[in-house]
Every structure is written in structure tokens, then in C-alpha cells.
């Protein structure tokens, strides 16, 4: 058939991945980077971007050991034994649900503060969760097509505004350029990695590719593009605000608000920026909901996907309501250092080693 059900083209997967990664931490990344490295913030974001591309290479290579039609759980069970595969499935599903909870909480907090002061926090989260779950229930093909529409709505105005913002920045704020030691740059880049929440989805999305030829390099290109957008955003934001950036909670939103768009008649541009952020946040929540439920289904191997989505949504919503919102940043870092690091580096590495060993053994037997 011309259009494959539940499959996506490489272009669609690239867009989906870019939206997933972009939605996670962009509004706070320049502040966090500046708090760590001052005017060297962009350097650690740059190194973080390069590291993300290397991790994408690792995750893409692990995907090469999946057989046709095999999901992450199936491949892990085959390569690392059934119990280990199932345990990894449960863990990554849990991790994605955590991501969902944390992203939703952060989203609810920002919307509450910037757009809807009177609306209860849980209503904002419930609405976003409901629409994300609805999209997840429609399958991967729908998600991929959605990404092709949302990509342009999110990125084109965002980049347009930031290019315009360059007229009013003081690049002197960025000098001296190498005020931070290489060791600190690496340490900072590792710490900023929590802004790349959607990266581990590379491990899960590859079975949905209509064609797997050159998929790894295309996914790496997507990660590099997002890395460039993040570096660009950090440079422009720091050049605009200088050291005061560390006192701004959401510097990217403030940046949008203070940028003068010639001929524009909208008074509060940050509200407009919020619109783009709503969409990119939808992308990451929707991605986490889709994969956490489908991985769970792959582990249990029973029932319909929509039931798992509904169950995950209830669990996520309960956690959002029970969570102490002061702890979000700490929890994001905690999840990133434990489960995140495991699924970004350790798990793919083990899968690659196991896959390569099996391939060598098979070749020797032949």
C-alpha cells in the first residue's frame, strides 16, 4: 500500500523527534545554563548538543539490532533474556510516565502563572493529558502526521521571532568567551542533559519506521538541528539579558515578550509564545503517553492499546495531583541521573554488545 498503517517516514520521525526534544526544557534551559556557566552558557549547550548527537548515534545503533517487526521489548527480550527485557520494558515505561508527570506539572505551573491565573492547576493538566492521550490512542501514524503540521506551527514563528530579536542584543555580553574550564563545560553539559527528555524515544520509535535505511543518520540530523536551535536560543537570550538572565524564571518567554516585531499589533507576545509552547508540550506528553502505554502492552502482551493509555493517564493524573510542585526541577534531575542515564547510555550499549556478540557467533557457526 502507498500509505502504511502505523508506520512513519524518516522525515516524519525526524519532525516528531525534534518536537519531542524541543518541548521539554527550552523555556528554562538558558537560565539553567547561565546559572552554571555565566556567559559560557552557550558553550555547555553546544557540548550538550554534540553529546546528544553521540547518544542518538548509540541509540540508533542499538535499533539496528531490532529485527523486522520487533519492538524494543521484543528485541531486549531476545538479546538480553526474557526477564531482563520485561524488566527494562517496565522501567522505561515507568520512566516515561515520570517524564509525563514532570512535564505536565511544569506545563501546568507555567500556564497557571502566565496565562490562566484563576484556573485550577489540575484542570490545566487534566485537559492537556486528555488531549495527549486521545492523540496517543490514534496510533503512531497519526502522531507522525500531527508532527508534520505542528513542526511548522512551532518552529517557524519561534525562529522568526528569535532572528528578529537579534537586532536588539548586545553580543558583548558573551565575552570573554572561554571563561569556563573545559572540565566544567563537560560537567555542565552533562547536567543540562535533563533538557533532552525525549531523546530516549529513539530507542522506542525505530520499529515504526516505514524504511529503516539511513534512519540512524536522519535521527542524528534531527538531534543536531535541535541542538543548534538550543544553542542559538541560549546565545540570543543571554546576549539580550546578560547576567540578569539568572533571575528570570522563563527567560525565553520574557525574550518573546520584549522582542519588537515590526508591524505586529499584539501587545503581549509572551502569550503568543505560550501558544507554541502548548503545542510542543503536547508533543512530548503525547509521545510519553504513547510509548509508556505501548511498552507496557508489549510487556504484558494482552489487551488493547487504548486500555493501557487510559490506565497510564489515570496514574499520571493522580501523580500530578499528588506531586509537590516545588520539587519538580529536583525530580527531573533525579529521574535524568538514574533512569535517564541508564536508558540513554547503558541499555543501548548492552544491547549493541549483545547483538554484536550474537552476530559474531552466528558468523563463526556458519
Amino acid at each position: 500500500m502507498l500509505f502504511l498503517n502505523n508506520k512513519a517516514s524518516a522525515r516524519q520521525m525526524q519532525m516528531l523527534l525534534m518536537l519531542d526534544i524541543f518541548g521539554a526544557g527550552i523555556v528554562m534551559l538558558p537560565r539553567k545554563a547561565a546559572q552554571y556557566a555565566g556567559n559560557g552558557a552557550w558553550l555547555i549547550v553546544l557540548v550538550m548538543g554534540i553529546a546528544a548527537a553521540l547518544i542518538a548515534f548509540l541509540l540508533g545503533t542499538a535499533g539496528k539490532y531490532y529485527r523486522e517487526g520487533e519492538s524494543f521489548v521484543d528485541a531486549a527480550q531476545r538479546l538480553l533474556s526474557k526477564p531482563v527485557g520485561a524488566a527494562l520494558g517496565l522501567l522505561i515505561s515507568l520512566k516515561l510516565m515520570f517524564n509525563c508527570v514532570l512535564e505536565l506539572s511544569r506545563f501546568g505551573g507555567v500556564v497557571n502563572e502566565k496565562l490562566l491565573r484563576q484556573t485550577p492547576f489540575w484542570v490545566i493538566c487534566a485537559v492537556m493529558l486528555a488531549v495527549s492521550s486521545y492523540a496517543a490512542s490514534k496510533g503512531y501514524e497519526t502522531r507522525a502526521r500531527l508532527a508534520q503540521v505542528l513542526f511548522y506551527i512551532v518552529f517557524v514563528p519561534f525562529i522568526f521571532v528569535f532572528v528578529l530579536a537579534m537586532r536588539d542584543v548586545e553580543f558583548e555580553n558573551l565575552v570573554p568567551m572561554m571563561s569556563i574550564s573545559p572540565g566544567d563545560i563537560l560537567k555542565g553539559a552533562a547536567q543540562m542533559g535533563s533538557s533532552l527528555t525525549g531523546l530516549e524515544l529513539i530507542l522506542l520509535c525505530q520499529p515504526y519506521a516505514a524504511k529503516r535505511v539511513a534512519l540512524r543518520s536522519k535521527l542524528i540530523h534531527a538531534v543536531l538541528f535541535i541542538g543548534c536551535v538550543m544553542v542559538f536560543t541560549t546565545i540570543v537570550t543571554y546576549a539580550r539579558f546578560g547576567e540578569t538572565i539568572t533571575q528570570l524564571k522563563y527567560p525565553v518567554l520574557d525574550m518573546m515578550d520584549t522582542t519588537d516585531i515590526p508591524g505586529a499589533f499584539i501587545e503581549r507576545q509572551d502569550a503568543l509564545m505560550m501558544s507554541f509552547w502548548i503545542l510542543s508540550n503536547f508533543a512530548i506528553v503525547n509521545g510519553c503517553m504513547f510509548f509508556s502505554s505501548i511498552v507496557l502492552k508489549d510487556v504484558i502482551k494482552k489487551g488493547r492499546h487504548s486500555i493501557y493509555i487510559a490506565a497510564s493517564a489515570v496514574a499520571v493524573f493522580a501523580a500530578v495531583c499528588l506531586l509537590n510542585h516545588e520539587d519538580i526541577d529536583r525530580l527531573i534531575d533525579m529521574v535524568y541521573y538514574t533512569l535517564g542515564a541508564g536508558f540513554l547510555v547503558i541499555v543501548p550499549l548492552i544491547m549493541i554488545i549483545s547483538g554484536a556478540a550474537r552476530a559474531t557467533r552466528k558468523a563463526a557457526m556458519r
Partner: protein
Amino acid sequence: MLSKSLDENIKQLESLFEGCGDFVKRMIPIGENRDIKIYVAYIDMLVSRNILDGHVLSQLMLFMWQTPPKPEAIKRDTLNTIRDSGVTTADLRETDNMGEMASAILSGDTVLMAGDSDRALIIATREMPNRGVGSAETEVAVQGPKDAFTEIMRFNTMLVRRRIKDTHLKVKQLVAGKRSQTSIAVMYLDELVRPQVLEECLNRIGAIDIDAVLDVGYVEQLTADNWMSVFPQAEITERPDKASAAILEGRVAILVDNSPFAMIVPATLSTFFQASDDYYQNWQIMSFTRFIRYAAGLMAVCLPGLYLACALYHPSMIPTLLAYKMAAARQAVPFPALAEIMLMDLAFELLREAGIRLPGPIGNSLGIVGGLIIGQSAVEAGLVSPIVLIIVALTAISGFAIPHVSLVNGLRLSKYVIIAGSWLLGLLGFWIGALVLLIRLVSLKTYGFPYLFPFVAGEVNDYSDIKDTLFRAPLFKMKKRPIFAKSVGDRVHAEPHEKE
């Protein structure tokens, strides 16, 4: 099955048409001794008197009396003799099935039974009352042909064939409707149509199980991929040039007897923004028009919701001077913003519905008078603010800028989702509503094609379909056929010569 006894066959046929006052029958004796009987039956006014009298009855009565065939020949095979010497029309066929005979009579054909033959002749004599080929009323074009489809299916197939003089243009004839026995013609170019699409189309029409198919709208609804969707899944047109263009794109046109519209499948969202005169005029101006149409589509869905979100939740987004003016205008209005919008929207919907039902000139006057007077009076009475009037009017006008009414209807209903979202959650609700609509749209497929193609999945056809969406590329630049067609060479074979 027919028997060898003419009396028995007549009895059986007449019992089927018992109580049908328009059933006409006649027994005619022929042969040298006038001892051979033939029986003719038809439905009054469904047949062409010229064909019946000139080519059938006068032949039988005069010619066969004047130069009768040899008695032994006529006795041996009466029906064949009559077919060879008694009827001077080429379009006839034989049958031995009583059901087929009855169906043919009901379709305007004449049935002839003779002697002791167990077969009958069905002579094509159909000529139904019709209003002729008129001009398009719902799809008016500034430039281009003015003719429109009519209720007679055969006229409609002729109107298409006149435009595509190619033996690859095929017409597959089907029948649907248990009682109506409506003829349906499926037209396509067999070199271009995708076999899966054609097969799916024929299967879906074949699966229609209903008493009557009275219009192409029945087929549209009964063959739709998703009956829950408010968005149209087949293009309905009254323009033969549009149907022909669609066939040339590898799509399938479905014509239904008694319906002056053709249905075109597959249809994607972008096809509903295309009008036939888009291709008859300069590409620059038509690209501009296309862009306006897409903007109109967005406005028809989003404008009231966006106003509500800004007015209720984010007034600080609106420029200060405008915000003051809006607030001042709203000061005297006793209703909340949502009620204002809904009130004016309801008034407009009432005017639209009443305008359609009333005869032409009165309907137009009602639209103008009602719109002006009600709007003006509502503002003067302080029931609505002028800005709401402008918003509702702009939304309505935007709907009229889209060439396909079925899409406008879908957008009309969709806007309420966004209004509800914006009313409840401001800009967040606006985007949530928009996302819900978008999810519905991207998950919709028609005959296997994504509804939002080529905006999504455009890479499948190397993005060449984009050239006929938001803008319209010059004709000679649109070389590749759209995704609907099998890839069998380009549709533009050479570029125009450029003058030095």
C-alpha cells in the same frame, strides 16, 4: 424464466404491473394470416414516442404486413425474425428473465414478446422528461465552461466524454437501491486510476443495501470512510469540467441517475479548496486567491474562538486602544461574550436557512434585509457589541469564500469546538480545541489517502502535490500527476516556448 406460452408470460408480466395505471400494453397480430401474436409493453412517458412509433410499431404494423417474411421462417423462430426484420433500432437485447424485463420496462425500455418464444426483446426506447443541460448554479466560475450536470445520467456521462475523447475513459454501470433500482455510472481512466481505489469504490457501491438511492448524496454517505467525521470525504460537483479534470488526475467520478451532481473520490482537504476556474486563469492571481481561501478557512473556524479567548482571558494581548474601544462597546451589552457570539451566530444561521428555503429573489432580499436590519437593530438595542457583529459577519463571509459547501458545513460545526475550548480555558482552550480538530483531521483517511495530504506525508510523491495547494504553480510546472494517479508519465509533455 419465461415459458413457451405467450399467454402465460403476459399473465405473469401483467400481474407484476397490476394497479400500475401508466403501464401500457398492446397485442399486435402479424404474419400473412395475422395469426402470430406479438405483445408490446412499456411505461407511458418513460419512452421515446419517436423511437417506439417510428422504429418499432410502424415497422411491425406496416412493413411486416406489406412485405411479410415467409410463414415457415416466422413460425420457426418468431423472435429472431422480428429482431432481424421488424425493428429498426440497433440498441436491443434479448432476455429470458421476467425480472430483467420488468426492470427494463421501469427504466423506460420497451419489451416485446412474440409467438411461442421463451425469450423477449428489450428495445432501448428510454427518453425521460428533462430540463436539458443548464448552467452551474452552486459552483459559478468567472471564466470557463458554464454547463452543468443534469438529472439524466446518460447526459452527464456524455458531458464528460465530450471533454475526454479517449478510449481509456471507462464507464462502469451499476445499480443500487432495492426499490429505486437507481443506475450508477462509475467513470475513470483505466490507464491512470489506481486499481485499489477503483476496486474499493466498486465494492463500496456494491455493498449499498438500501431501499432507494435518490441522489448522489446517498452514495456519498453510504460509502464514506468515517461516518462520524463532519468533514466531507468525497467531492461533490455539478461541473462536468471539474469531474473531467478529476478523472484526468486518476480519480473516480460517480454519477447517479436523477442527480445533477457528480461525486469524486478520493478527496483530500486540499481538493476542497480548488475551484475549476483556478486553472483557467493566470497562475499568479489564482495563487493569491488560493491563499485567501485557506486564510478564509482558518478564519471560519478560529475567529470567534480567538475573539472569546482574547476578550475573556487575555485582554492584555489586544492593543490598548482597541481593547478600550472593545470594552466601551461592550459596556452596555447585558449578555456575556459567549452569549453575544452565539446569539449573532444563531441569527445568521437562521437567515442562511431561511434564505435557502425561500424562492430565489425573496431569499436574496431576506439575506440582505435580515442581515442589515437585525445586525443594526441588535447593536442599537445594545444586545450585541459592534465588534461581535464584525466577528460573526467575517466568519460567515469567510465560509462563502470556500468553493465547496460541504467543507464549509464541516467548518461551521468545527468552530463550536474551538468556541467551547476558548470560552472555558482561553488561549489554552483555543489550542486544545484546535488540536482535537487536527487530530481528527490527521487520523482521517479517504480511500487510503491521508485527508491532509500533501501537507502531511507529501514526501510520498516528492512533494509535487504541494504545487496545487496553498498556491497554484504555472500549468507547465505541474508536470507530475497528483498522488491519486498511477505513475504513467507526466501530464505536461513540453514546456511552452520562450521567446528570445
